[in-house]
């Protein structure tokens, strides 16, 4: 089963790139959490443990031929969808949202694997679906139903960030498959009343408040606008070269919220300045391009679609998180892949990278 070619074709560049970004992330978490009161294992160390676990998972994922995933795609989709329904029925509520379910001795957050599963499902669907000159509205019916079910369930938890991410991932894959202009225009026309109705009925008050605050953070600078304002101050006060490692006043004195998780990049921007940000953006862009390159070089449609999906997943995480940190987007709890502290994000991102490595090293196998 083990082919020598797999080792020769292993995508060391991708792995190195991921480890480099993760390394910066760990260093940054060290600084971001240095002002925290010491309880148990420090965050940066835990992040290293998660990274090691993530890499093991990543290597496990890439050891199984991705073509086998094609057979499991719908089964996995069905299983995670059931879990999403279960969350709403028997889920554990924390901080006003129900995202977790207890499964005996551990808890799972099924919205997170859905990011990967939707990629597999769409890849499976379109790999055998003949497309001529783009998808028509009729062609979109099934895929939109496949997306809509989990997206609405996740929105209901409520977890707007993940729902948007899942939709963006799926949408990017649709664009890759190709959508006719007429269908796009119709969808766009349908989107406007949907957004209006969504705002009116589907969004929770705290979600609306976040959007209001994004539009005008000065409405409530001490309250809900605080995150956006303080993060912008942190980023901007870093200037060109930054305040220096461990010398960011906004982070060290804890003016920043969630500074080791969602706002980790804010800490980095303050301490390393524009130059540091430029380096990070370049690394991330390189990662995305590399993922898309894998998609381009892949010989089969399923692999290609999967690679685009994973690239889209990473891309949208990066854009939404950074956009939030620098005040371009409203505050939604989306972590920066490999950079924000957190096991869940690390696992999902590493599984994604595992898939990319998987596809990359099997591109010559036929």
């Amino acid at each position: 089963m083990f082919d020598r070619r797999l080792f020769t074709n292993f995508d060391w560049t991708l792995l190195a790139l991921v480890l480099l970004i993760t390394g910066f992330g760990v260093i940054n978490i060290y600084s971001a959490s240095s002002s925290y009161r010491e309880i148990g294992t420090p965050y940066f160390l835990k992040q290293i443990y998660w990274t090691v676990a993530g890499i093991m998972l990543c290597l496990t994922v890439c050891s199984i031929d991705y073509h086998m995933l094609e057979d499991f795609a719908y089964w996995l989709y069905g299983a995670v969808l059931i879990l999403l329904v279960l969350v709403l029925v028997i889920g554990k509520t924390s901080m006003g949202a129900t995202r977790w379910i207890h499964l005996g001795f551990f808890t799972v957050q099924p919205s997170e694997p859905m990011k990967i599963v939707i990629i597999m499902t769409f890849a499976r669907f379109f790999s055998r679906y003949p497309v001529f000159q783009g998808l028509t509205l009729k062609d979109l019916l099934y895929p939109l139903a496949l997306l809509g079910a989990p997206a609405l369930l996740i929105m209901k938890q409520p977890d707007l960030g993940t729902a948007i991410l899942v939709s963006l991932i799926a949408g990017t894959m649709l664009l890759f498959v190709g959508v006719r202009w007429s269908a796009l225009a119709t969808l766009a026309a349908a989107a406007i009343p949907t957004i209006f109705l969504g705002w009116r009925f589907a969004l929770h008050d705290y979600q609306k408040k976040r959007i209001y605050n994004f539009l005008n953070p000065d409405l409530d600078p001490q309250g809900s606008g605080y995150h956006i304002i303080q993060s912008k101050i942190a980023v901007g006060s870093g200037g060109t070269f930054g305040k220096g490692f461990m010398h960011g006043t906004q982070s060290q004195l804890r003016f920043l919220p969630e500074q080791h998780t969602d706002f980790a990049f804010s800490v980095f921007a303050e301490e390393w300045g524009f130059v540091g940000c430029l380096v990070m953006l370049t690394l991330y862009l390189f990662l995305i391009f590399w993922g898309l390159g894998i998609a381009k070089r892949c010989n089969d449609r399923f692999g290609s679609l999967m690679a685009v999906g994973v690239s889209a997943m990473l891309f949208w995480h990066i854009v939404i998180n950074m956009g939030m940190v620098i005040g371009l987007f409203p505050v939604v709890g989306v972590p920066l892949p490999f950079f924000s502290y957190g096991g869940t994000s690390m696992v999902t991102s590493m599984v994604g990278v595992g898939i990319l490595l998987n596809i990359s090293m099997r591109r010559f196998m036929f």
Partner: protein
Amino acid sequence: MKAHSGIIPDGDGSRRIIWISFGAFAMFFLLLSRLWYLQVVDTENLLDQSENNRLRFVPVAAPRGAILDRNGKVLVSNTPSFSVAVIPKDVKDREQLVSSLARLLKLDPKEIQDKWNKGQGRAKYYPLVVASNISRDQMEFLEENRLSLSGVNIEMKPVRAYPNGELASHLLGYLGEVSEEELGNERYKDYNAGDYTGKSGIEKSWENFLHGTDGGRQIEVDARGRFLRTVEETASTVGNSVMLTIDLDMQKVAEQAFGDKAGAAVAMDVNTGEVLAFASNPGFDPALFTGRLPADKWKEYLEDKRHPLENKALKGMYPPGSTFKIITAIAGIEEGLIDAHSSVDCPGYYKFGNATFKCWDKKGHGHVELRKALRESCDVYFYKLAERLGVNRIAAYAKKFGLGAPMGIGLDNEKGGVIPTEEWKKKRFGTKWFSGETLSVGIGQGYVLTTPVQLASMIATVANDGVIYQPHLVKRIVDLDGKPIKEFPPQQVGRAAIKPSTFKLIKEGLFAVVNEPHGTGGMARLSEVKVAGKTGSSQVVKMRDSKGEVPYQFRDHALFVAFAPLEKPEIAVAVIVEHGEHGGSAAAPIAGRLLRAYFEGKGVIKKPVPKQEPKDEKGGAPGSGTPTAPAAAPAADTDTE
């Protein structure tokens, strides 16, 4: 391994990946542009904001300079004051702490609770003052019980101390927190809300010197306002001390002489303009204003008919009454209308048109010449003189003596008084001047208003043969080590161009007032020193001849101006006793005691054996060798109808 998927990516797929890459690049470029804007373009502004987040300026108030008398005796200084503050986050059981604090400090728990609630919005790490100005005993008691009081801090700051209690309270003034209105003023541009500043008197007018330079600490705090470290520290500089021209002993005598009567007394060095005593009675306790003024005390002050909070020496405007006859007389001589021997017959009244102007002595003074007119304060003499002079000429002479305008004594809000002219009335009331009104002006009634400071300066100018010195209260400013920083030497600000012979005549008349039989000012007489002066009493309302007791607030004011010694004057005084009725009996004795205190201080008069005191108080000059008895009947004067 066998591939399941049959369809191989076509050319379209590759092309779309390029499009998608392009889209990704565009998004990243957008992020980078935003970062460029924040970190390069707008960085200065955001850096400022981050500095504002972490840096706090904690002002350290400079101790105020002291206020000293002319001999360096302390009038106002500083003393440490202890206050109790709690740090809310360190408090475990608030209810319990409040009740034990209330018990230990003997305060109402509600009061503590209220102050606590007021500071509720602030950071939990910030000390919150719940009781200020506690006594040393209370503090020690708290210290002993420290262990059971976690979260309680005892803070020390300097506050004003008044070793002489209420003495010179109006002159010294009091402190208070700078008001919002003041904060908007250029003069207070360096002040912050909560800072203390002089609110009246010397404390206010000489604030610039007394205040010193506040220091401060730039501290770094975290997001919760917790103190982390001191970044920078600037020491405060103690304010300079203000040395007054006031003589503490004379000031004491002046205030004691009033007893419980209301009024003002100003004593001035004739040859320098230095104010030796500046009393306004009754006084108030300036210490009450630094802490919280008890409501009952405040009410008491406001309801007191004698208006203890009013600085009568500076702002009290009184008709000068017969003391103004000095001006009328000078004007008459200078204008050539009278000389020492011009005479008038006083039948006790003067008919002017349809009106009858009464002399204070209904029996009349008979044949009156200048000396007698002054000595016995004959109204009819001055009615007739005033009529001939006209109001404008009288006003011109009054102004030569500095009346009718603030003197610039060195305190805020000094009043200027009123010296009426025909033009003034036209402007003020829009009506014509009636010649009858001139008669009232001639005896210091009607529209004429003067302040005690002005009257003191006026009589000093007479004593000086016309040389006007700037009346002033501050002798010099000294720094912490006593080194003079600024001196205020005597300053001649004018000269009333009056012939020396005129002054000679007036002075003879004023000497007669105090020292001759029938003189109205006998009670100011000193056996060792020749005193010259003039009594006055001024109407508050037109209600003479009413039988029985006149209600307090309608009684006439009693005035007395004097200088001594006659030949080589050194000191001038002006005394006003509100509703004291007769200048000769109410005001002259106070002036006499002031003059006595001055010459005792100089060693000219030997200090009396304590036994003699009571007699001295009652009878003017005991054992005096002068031929006349002290004015038998209290001398009253004016009347206009």
